[in-house]
């Protein structure tokens, strides 16, 4: 043995407060969360380092299951073409990115709402005939 002091105290007795403080500092520096000390007599000491104030970034949210088509302008929502019986994109319909899925009407102006992705229409979010604002959710698509 060298004359160096031991890295860890003799565990035949449990460490005193100053030694505990030193050990926790080592734990934190090593990036360890906790350690358990025990001796033959069955005495047990568990040290847990408090989480550092800089919390790790939360796990990225799970990828959205659906993509929402939003209004590119404001106007009265028409989910079907005025001259047709069938909606542009009824529930369950297959749409391709860029397809017209609804119209916004203002006076004589008609602004198409288009599908942001290929997929199946999962939910109709806008109400037929309602005045919807810019960015309003019209329907969702499951890619």
């Amino acid at each position, binding site marked *: 043995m060298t004359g160096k002091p031991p890295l860890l105290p003799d565990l035949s007795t449990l460490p005193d407060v100053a030694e505990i403080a030193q050990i926790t500092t080592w734990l934190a520096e090593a990036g360890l969360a906790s350690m358990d000390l025990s001796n033959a007599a069955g005495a047990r000491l568990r040290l847990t380092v408090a989480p550092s104030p800089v919390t790790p970034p939360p796990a990225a949210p799970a990828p959205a299951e659906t993509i929402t088509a939003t209004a590119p*302008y*404001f*106007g*009265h929502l028409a989910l079907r073409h005025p001259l047709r019986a069938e909606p542009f994109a009824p529930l369950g319909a297959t749409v391709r990115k860029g397809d017209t899925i609804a119209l916004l009407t*203002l*006076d004589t*102006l008609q602004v198409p709402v288009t599908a942001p992705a290929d997929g199946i229409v999962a939910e109709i979010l806008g109400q037929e005939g309602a*005045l919807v*604002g*810019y*960015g*309003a959710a019209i329907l969702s698509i499951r890619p």
Partner: protein
Amino acid sequence: MSARRFDRVLIANRGEIALRIQRACRALGLETVAVHSEADAESRHVRQADIALCIGPAPAARSYLDAESLLLAARATGASAIHPGYGFLSENAAFADAVEDGGLTFIGPTGASIRMMGDKITAKRAMRDAGVPCVPGSDGPLPPEMDAIHAMAAQVGFPVIVKASGGGGGRGMRVVWNADELEQAVTLTAKEAQQAFGNPTLYLERFMQKPRHIEIQVLCDTHGTALWLGARDCSLQRRHQKVLEEAPAPGISPDIIADIGERCAQACRRIGYRGAGTFEFLYEDGIFAFIEMNTRVQVEHPITEATTGIDIVAAQLQIAQGEKLAIRQQDIATLGHAIECRINAEDPRTFMPSPGRITSWDLPGGPGIRIDTHVTAGYTVQPYYDSLIGKVIAHGATRQQAIARLRVALAEMQVQGVSTNIPLHQDILADPHFQQGGVDIHYLERWLAERATP
């Protein structure tokens, strides 16, 4: 009772003024339409409007400045009048015309009035013709004879500034402090003007060294009544932005204000002005010099509301309904003194904008304190628009009392999450020169420069 011209008003603005307009509409039993950008969806007036409609993304060009969208939104929501507030499209003559051409009421003057006042040369000529004082000067090109120029300068009063007609942007001008320097200055400036602009024509004006910014609020109906509502002193400015305003203007006698006010009202009658408006002047050594007219409600209108007891925004709405003003000039008094501090989300020393979420927002109160703000705790100050987050207005029987109330109010106001210029206002209110009253338009910048150098 005759039917109203409009029952539902589209508010084509945002922030504190949109809320101010909404309150005035409600007090008159009018419904409101809040059109807003995506960034303002959570704004207070939007949440409380009878109808709210998001008309575009955050950039003003695609929302608050998009005239076509605003007109379509008015039609879609059944609004038959548009209040433009201040800034954005409020002084856009083409927009005012388009609103009225579309059969709606524009709550403001006619497009023709806005156009006339928007052109500084036309505005100045019209005002001079109507008897509103402009900066004394040669009123045209200088004559070739030096004797005639001397006579003109003596009449205007030294110091004068000799300017090249073709000049601009600070070039081709020379300040002349006394008659001895005049001839040389004229010769040199003419020579430079010839070289720089290919035109040696000069004119001459009184040079105002340390003017104050004094403005007159007017209110005109469509039945020939034009009233002036007293003066405001808005001399505390930084980079031409007003910081703190007060009414009345300290140290200027009411008789002088009454004379200038009546001239402004007379000019309004003459040009058929309608609605609220403000004549802005530079004032020095008893001389008023017209700068421009603002053809809209102003940020600082509450201090005049405090001293006159007149609800200016409600009056705008009533005038637009075609109603006669119920007040007479002789009934309008100046009651006490009012001061407004514009509270901006900005660093009080560097003036850098400080957008972000306001986590804590404790407002002051007490006698004579009025707060105009669209902000509530949790509000996010957007980086897309100006940084005005509110106005604290104090009214007192005297200027001293107004200052005291304001100081208590600002000390009480607690804002967390963003930086504000409240400390700057506190320093201004504690400044002995400000307390004395009557500082000039360069004072604040000089004061800021001095305290920046240790």
